[in-house]
């Protein structure tokens, strides 16, 4: 049992991180903490992929001309490079939205935002909507 766990410690870490991340996303009311949770959750998946690509005894996948060299699988790493970019974009957009939420509601706590007088709209653009306004 212990040996089995020790043999798959990478997966155990992935699962722990994943649960921490998902818990933060679901349970925190602070929007920044939610976003932190999302990042942790995504990172756990990155680690999962990267550890998938490791071949026991394999070296870095750079061709050295020797046909007997055992390489690790580079494909998962490349995929995760893409996923990291996507993750950064998600975080950036999330932070930008949080900034705007803070401007509009004066809070980034979800329960306070819900309590805020949500019906009060921000001003509409100045330009009239054409003849329809009259």
């Amino acid at each position, binding site marked *: 049992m212990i040996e089995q766990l020790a043999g798959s410690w990478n997966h155990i870490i992935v699962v722990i991180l994943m649960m921490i991340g*998902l818990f933060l*996303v679901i349970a925190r009311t602070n*929007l920044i903490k*939610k*976003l932190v949770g*999302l990042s942790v*959750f*995504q990172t756990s*998946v990155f680690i*999962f*992929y990267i550890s*998938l690509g490791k071949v026991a005894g394999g070296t870095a996948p750079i061709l050295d001309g020797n046909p007997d060299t055992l390489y690790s699988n580079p*494909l*998962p790493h490349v*995929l995760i490079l*893409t*996923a990291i970019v*996507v993750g950064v*974009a*998600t975080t950036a*957009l*999330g932070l930008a*939205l*949080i900034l*705007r*939420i803070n401007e*509009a*509601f004066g809070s980034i706590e979800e329960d306070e*935002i819900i309590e805020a007088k*949500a019906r*009060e*709209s*921000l001003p*509409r*653009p100045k*330009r009239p*909507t*054409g*003849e*329809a*306004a*009259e």
Partner: protein
Amino acid sequence: MGAAIITNLPALLVAVPLLLAPVSALLHSASLAWMLTLIGAGSSFIAALMLQSITENGVRISYHLGNWEPPWGIEFVVDSATSLTLVVMTGLGFIATLAARRLVSSEINDKDSGKFYAAWMLVSGGLFGLVMTADAFNLFVFLEISALASAILIGMGAGTDRRALVAGFHYLVIGAVGATFYVIGVGFIYAMTGTLNMGDMAARIPEAGGGAVLHVGFGFMVAGMLVKAAIFPVHIWLPAAYSYAPSAVSTLLAAIATKAALYVLARIVFTIFGGVPEIADIALSNVIVPLAIGGIFIGTVMAIYEADIKKMFAHSSVAQIGYIALGLGLTTPAGVSASFIHIANHALIKGGIFMAIGGFVAALGARANLDSITGIGRRMPITATAFLICGLSLAGLPLTAGFISKLYLVRAVLETESYLILALVLISSALSIVYLWKIMEVMWMQPAPVRSPKLAENPAIYLPLWIVAFGNIWFGIDASWLVAAARSAATALLGGGV
């Protein structure tokens, strides 16, 4: 030159919107950006129609990006199922773009319009790629392109209602969790099969010999797509997102966004896991069908108790997505083709309804709720009549497109002899008349408040709206094209092979 364009159509369908987007972001003139978007949307529609005419007889186009042979390179596959979905999405996307000019100028600042249309094209291009790609990881990338751009578009509703920001944020977070679930699933399947190409996966999964890893991978992939398709109980992002987004965005998302995710769900279940029916069929009949029926009822009941018109129809979308998922869950050719028929008809119905609501909102200068639209049938007769036609189509009145959907769905359910499901479908259809009646009564039968003048209607909004309304009647009277296309789509999906 012409031949080169035709052979590269699948790539162009994605590349053109994605390349036009940054150009549009640099434009300061709202009209120019809109023209550019219209050209992009129009050429996508033409490209989709050409693909449809090539593939309607069962031809399957396999496009190798950068000439890398699959399974090493990324492959785009267009068969009759893909091209039907594409025609629906590009067609409605084009009409939504036509109407967008007026709707956007009344809700978005002129200086932001260039960026707005850039995000608009990113959503479209991302969704077209999502539908065509046959590479499981590439699918995730397209999923996120369209999701990030949708979150931006939803958040842009903040100009008129600050709740749009929160809706956009929730959509972003829930969508990202869903997409990450999908990636986990792909990781498991990749570990089992060593490939990311869907066709390759499909061929190797039966050999991989079942096991827990396969089940878990399948579960994660499907769960991720359920979030994206807004199937009950993970639909919670949808009502807020659709109702606080700018009107033009509601139109676009309601018409095309969830449809793409539903199509991908079908691809995962029928194509990738088509070789292991013991996993796929059980998931469909024990998970998707109950969830679909749950969604139909929750969506309908929530719509009945809603006073805000946009939110009401957003809830109703949850119910309609349930009907589409139910058709897929039946796993019979009749059920799947009923699904495709409803994908097309629901895009027509909801596209029209949200466009009409956008017209009301633009004319009223306020949110449309049961109070503010009292008597609007007399104040804005042209828009309100088109709204009435789309509403009747939603209820499934004969001679409208919605009736064809219901007819084929009921026939498909009858074929499987599951009378409980049949009863539930009929009851929920009857319930949907409740909220539609509520609106129609307020709009047409109650007098407008005293001293409320006739509102000016803008042809830039009601002409595209009437195209959609006419489509609703056309496909209600002569559905032969749609039914034939949906049948061949079902054959392509269930026949195995990407």
